[in-house]
């Protein structure tokens, strides 16, 4: 009780106490994790190094705030793996080492649109082009976009980006999720045929 009443009389003790208690948790949750778990910043496996064009794409992704509608993480959940898979192949779970070359992380918090962690190679660059121009009307070339897709997408149109910018952005998108080679059929043949 003596101690408590001393603390309550002292600016220094109150401030020091509040700082010390905070600092324990602060250090253990920010500085210690990368020391204990090196895969947060180092990878044993090869990780894609971004080209200059892809780096420009990353800047556009950041500037246009895609992260506020799209996450980039396949969580350890069957529903995530199934939904963001490809041709009946479940998407591989995202692991921390896959992100080590991301100077800006886009893990995200809100899925107003689908997850993009494994979107690289899923659609042709032409598809992305049409989609950025107008997600609600991608033209005759993409008949599977008709119907409910056409009406219900609330992704903004990014038609105000220059052609060059859309190309850079698409180049970046096409790298996503390629650090794991997960898109193979039962016999191990790659399913990445759409990019031809």
């Amino acid at each position, binding site marked *: 009780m003596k101690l*408590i009443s001393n603390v*309550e*009389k002292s*600016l220094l003790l*109150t*401030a020091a*106490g*509040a*700082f010390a*208690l*905070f600092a*324990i*948790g*602060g250090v*253990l*949750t*920010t500085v210690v*994790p*990368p020391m204990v*778990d090196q895969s*947060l*910043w180092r990878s044993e496996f090869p990780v894609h190094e971004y080209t200059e064009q892809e780096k420009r794409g990353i800047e556009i992704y*950041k*500037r*246009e*705030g895609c*992260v*506020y509608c799209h*996450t980039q993480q396949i*969580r350890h*959940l069957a*529903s995530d793996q*199934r*939904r963001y898979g490809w041709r009946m192949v479940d998407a591989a*779970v*995202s692991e*921390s080492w*896959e*992100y*080590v*070359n*991301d100077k*800006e*992380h886009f*893990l995200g*918090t809100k*899925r*107003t*649109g*689908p997850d993009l962690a494994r979107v690289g190679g899923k659609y042709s660059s032409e598809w992305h082009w049409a989609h950025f121009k107008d997600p*609600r009307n991608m033209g005759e070339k993409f008949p599977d976009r008709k119907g*409910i897709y056409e*009406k*219900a*997408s*609330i992704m*903004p*149109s990014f*038609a*105000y980006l220059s052609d060059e910018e859309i190309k850079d952005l698409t180049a970046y998108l096409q790298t996503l999720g390629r650090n794991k080679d997960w898109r193979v059929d039962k016999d191990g043949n790659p399913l990445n045929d759409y990019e031809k």
Partner: protein
Amino acid sequence: MKQDTAAKTAIIASCFYFGLALTMGLLTALKFIVPTVGEIEYLSMPRVRMLHTNINLFGWLLQANIGILFWILPRILHTKLFSEKLGVATGILYNLTVLGGFACILLGKVKNVEYGEIPPPFDYLIAVCWLLFAINVFGTVATRKVKYLYVTVWYTLGAVIWTTFVFITGNMFSQMPMVTGVNQANLIWFYVHNAVGLIFTPLGVAIAYYLIPKQLDTPIYSHKLSMVGFWVISFVYVWTGAHHMLHGPVSHWLQTVAIIFSFSLIIPVMAVITNFFGTFATAPKSIRMKGPVPKLLMMGTVYYIFTCLQGPFQAIRSVNEIVSKTDWVVGHAHMALFGAFSYYAMAGVYYIAPRLAGRRLYSEKLGDLQFWIMTLASIPFFAVLWISGVVQGYAWLNPENTFVATLAAIRHAHIMRFSTGGLIFAAYFLFLYNVLQTFFGKYPEEVEAAEAAAVSE
């Protein structure tokens, strides 16, 4: 310099930002219904959303809290503000800084930090303003004329110290070149979570700890509970950042730590809330709910309980699987920052504005009306977001549902959010009008007196 100038400028400025932030919120909500509205670069949905959060956090809430504390601290410490000049200078620099920051966001010059999009040099300048504020806080406490520090002072000191580290970690350390990927995400989550938990929670609670007993003319219910609340929150809040990455690519042990500490948060929150309600319960009935100030304090406390119980609930792994990444989270965030802390801040403004102006509040009736519209609109506003979150979360479990089909299923919720948000926006103008009238307006009795004088002449 005239006493309380610093408080006055910060409070008045913050009220305008509040309206601007709500405008941005409403526009975001509209874009969820009609995505083609305002299809230009500067008004694309992410920009508007970033403006909405940043103007709310830095323009309105933080500034309102600073202004309110500039007024409260000298009163509880029985002294003058350490330096009125420094306070005013801080306010001016701060407003120029945040305006510069908002302009950058509008132009797309942003940092990839949620709640910290304001880029350098403006984020550094915010840190500078914060340190100037800290000097004033420490100075005022050091030159006090009372022996003991009241709870409000503990929380303010805590907030000043914690925020310095939280802000620098999220805005500066996270941007260092060797900090990448999930490691960066972890630092940013540390910031985002503690921005709410160790900036706005302690500041809001500090203000409520002053206003509730003062307004109700009743001593705080229990000093012991005050201590438990403060010292436990200093220890437990900071651990929880990783609960935003449950099931994600971050270390499993870190997630578990975050979950455990999320639960331990119930202790300080319950201590604070029991204390607030205890004070309400022991206050004389006749003044318990008189006028907008106690109503806002009461409802803010109710929202505070709900947010703080929702937090641990969402951190349960199986619950998180459904609600995470959906609209639910948006509902949760609004209940904390709008429901609890903006209510406390509005109570503070309503309490202090008349005292700064040296007369009564312009209209208690109008204040009550504003309270009721905001409250009755905000309950469905939060609720539809939770409902839509749960609906979409379950819909995602079934891979047969295409993504847009799950989006179409929650369209009604987005329409509800926009319309109830519109009511909140309308009620804001009653608040602004009332506050501005209190500071600058003519009161009916003054008009009458002037007329009477004119007649008798």
